[in-house]
């Protein structure tokens, strides 16, 4: 490894990000610049910002490693990521969110929900869920990135966490959402190039797509009995219907993440950064291709690592990933191990930048939303008043979010990290999605319906995470402490993701309670759904 070259590459990257951060700082003059990047971001920048915030190290390394275990069945998640996470999200959620959000002058997701239902409680409850749960997700991204930095740059883990946190916070704090979007565009471009190269080089190494897929199919003969017992049928087959692995792939991975993306506050706020629905029509093009190249490549390559490790060390990826320190397989090691052993040295540098970019682009969006949830939604002056210095308030909110995230990154046990991303996606879907979707498309949706749905969704998710869903309950330890066992019920409840129960329950609650309670006043509905798109007040032309 050429250390001098490595440090030069990192220094150039840091300088480029810092330069974009300064550019954003020089263009951030108002509260609206800070919150929604002025509301006139170019569609290509918006799509790259959305995609790179969506895709973190846990998607590439975590879920890519899971593809090494489960195989190509994870491609159903890639399909969901593109069709639900981009096409449905932009076309049916994004454009409507932009129109209603602009009509209500909403600049954060909790503010959007609060104004749509004319309820301060909804705004503060949504902000509280974000302020409490999102640092857990941010810490998961931070820990993954810092562990990677620790291995590649040989720096102390605690130092890596602090460097990451302070560097990302610096450009988010000074440049607001403009700082996030500008740096996301650079980071998204690096990620696209890195993943495209990874796909081409992997297929080339294994003799082309057809030969690679056939070799992977042939590996089913070497499947360990322990995996077959859980429903594994090979890396180019779905797990056996209703087996343990089928539930993990379908309920946690495909549904949990595939649907959960629709209700992610840090992604929803991206819709508000463009000028009109036309920009979102254009952003769909870049978004679809970008996500295909991210999770599509990560999952295909993750599965194909089995062929490489079989040909070189005679083991499947899971067995090759045994951690020397613990003696146990660790799927998070599969992708880094493959890159370091199968790819040329120059590509390990490219991939390092890809992962740092993936982590930083997600962290910046998380920090921004945690900060605005605290400063604008939880600590908001009464309506009609404005804070004396809203920019300062937003920046103080970000510092609070940063401190919580860094503290969690030092304190969380390794076991809880793997589920933190899925927990956050699941809780967001159950708590927010019915109220959000109904707010866009159902004029009969009521304030009481939205409140009941959010309470039922978050409470059901929390209950299942603590008591029935084994991955969550074993990590949290509440069931063990109260009842002396890691989960209350037997299989399949131990592997049924909370979203499978909590989302339908909160959806039914939304409809039933709305039908028996007072509708939202007509004047508010007229204002929400007027067709006109207004330029955001205070927007400065780019």
């Amino acid at each position, binding site marked *: 490894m050429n250390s001098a070259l490595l440090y030069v590459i990192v220094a150039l990257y840091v300088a480029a990000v810092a330069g974009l951060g300064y550019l954003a700082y020089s263009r951030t003059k108002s509260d609206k610049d800070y919150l929604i990047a002025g509301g006139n971001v170019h569609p290509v920048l918006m799509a790259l910002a959305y995609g790179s915030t969506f895709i973190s190290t846990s998607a590439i390394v975590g879920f890519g490693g899971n593809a090494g275990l489960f*195989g*190509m*069945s994870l*491609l*159903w998640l*890639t*399909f969901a990521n*593109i*069709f639900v996470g*981009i*096409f449905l999200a932009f*076309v049916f959620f994004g*454009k409507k969110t932009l129109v209603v959000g602009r009509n209500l002058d909403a600049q954060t997701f909790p503010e959007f929900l609060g104004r749509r239902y004319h309820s301060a409680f909804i705004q503060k409850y949504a902000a509280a869920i974000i302020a409490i749960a999102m640092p857990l997700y941010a810490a998961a991204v931070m820990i993954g990135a810092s562990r990677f930095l620790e291995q590649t740059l040989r720096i102390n883990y605690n130092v890596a966490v602090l460097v990451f946190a302070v560097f990302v916070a610096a450009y988010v704090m000074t440049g607001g959402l403009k700082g996030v979007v500008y740096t996301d565009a650079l980071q998204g471009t690096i990620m696209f190039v890195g993943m495209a190269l990874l796909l081409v080089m992997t297929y080339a190494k294994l003799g082309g*797509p*057809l*030969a*690679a*897929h*056939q070799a992977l*199919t042939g590996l089913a003969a070497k499947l360990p009995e322990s995996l077959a017992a859980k429903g594994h049928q*090979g890396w*180019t*087959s*779905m797990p056996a219907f209703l087996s343990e692995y089928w539930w993990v792939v379908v309920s946690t991975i495909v549904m949990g993440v595939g649907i959960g993306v629709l209700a992610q506050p840090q992604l929803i706020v991206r819709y508000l950064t463009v000028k*009109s*629905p*036309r920009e979102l*029509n*254009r*952003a*769909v*093009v870049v*978004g*679809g*291709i970008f*996500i*295909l190249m991210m999770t*599509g490549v990560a999952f*295909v390559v993750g599965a194909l690592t089995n062929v490489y490790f079989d040909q070189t060390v005679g083991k499947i990826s899971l067995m090759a990933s045994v951690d020397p320190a613990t003696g146990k397989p660790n799927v998070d090691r599969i992708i880094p191990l493959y890159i370091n052993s199968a790819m040329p040295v120059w590509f390990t540098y490219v991939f390092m930048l890809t992962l740092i970019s993936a982590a930083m682009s997600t962290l910046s969006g998380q920090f921004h939303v945690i900060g605005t949830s605290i400063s604008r939604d939880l600590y908001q002056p009464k309506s009609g008043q404005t804070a004396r210095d809203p920019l300062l308030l937003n920046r103080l909110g970000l510092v609070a979010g940063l401190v919580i995230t860094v503290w969690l990154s030092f304190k969380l046990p390794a076991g809880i990290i793997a589920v933190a991303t899925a927990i956050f996606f699941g809780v967001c879907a159950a708590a927010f999605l019915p109220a959000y979707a109904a707010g866009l498309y159902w004029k009969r949706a009521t304030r009481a319906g939205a409140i009941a749905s959010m309470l039922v969704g978050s409470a059901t998710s929390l209950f299942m995470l603590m008591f029935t869903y084994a991955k969550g309950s074993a990590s949290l330890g509440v069931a063990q402490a109260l009842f002396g066992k890691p989960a209350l019920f037997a299989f399949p409840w131990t592997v049924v993701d909370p979203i499978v129960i909590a989302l339908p329950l909160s959806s039914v609650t939304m409809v039933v309670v709305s039908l028996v309670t007072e509708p939202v006043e007509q004047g508010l509905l007229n204002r929400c759904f007027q067709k006109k*798109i207004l330029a955001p007040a205070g927007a400065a032309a780019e």
Partner: protein
Amino acid sequence: MLGIPDPQIWLAYLLCLLSAGLCVAYGAVKWNSHD
């Protein structure tokens, strides 16, 4: 198909490509539309 015998998997592989194609086609058709 594609060297993958299980139709549930090659269908997923194809749907990934088709859904990305749908995004490109939609954007191209609605490029100048404000709706």
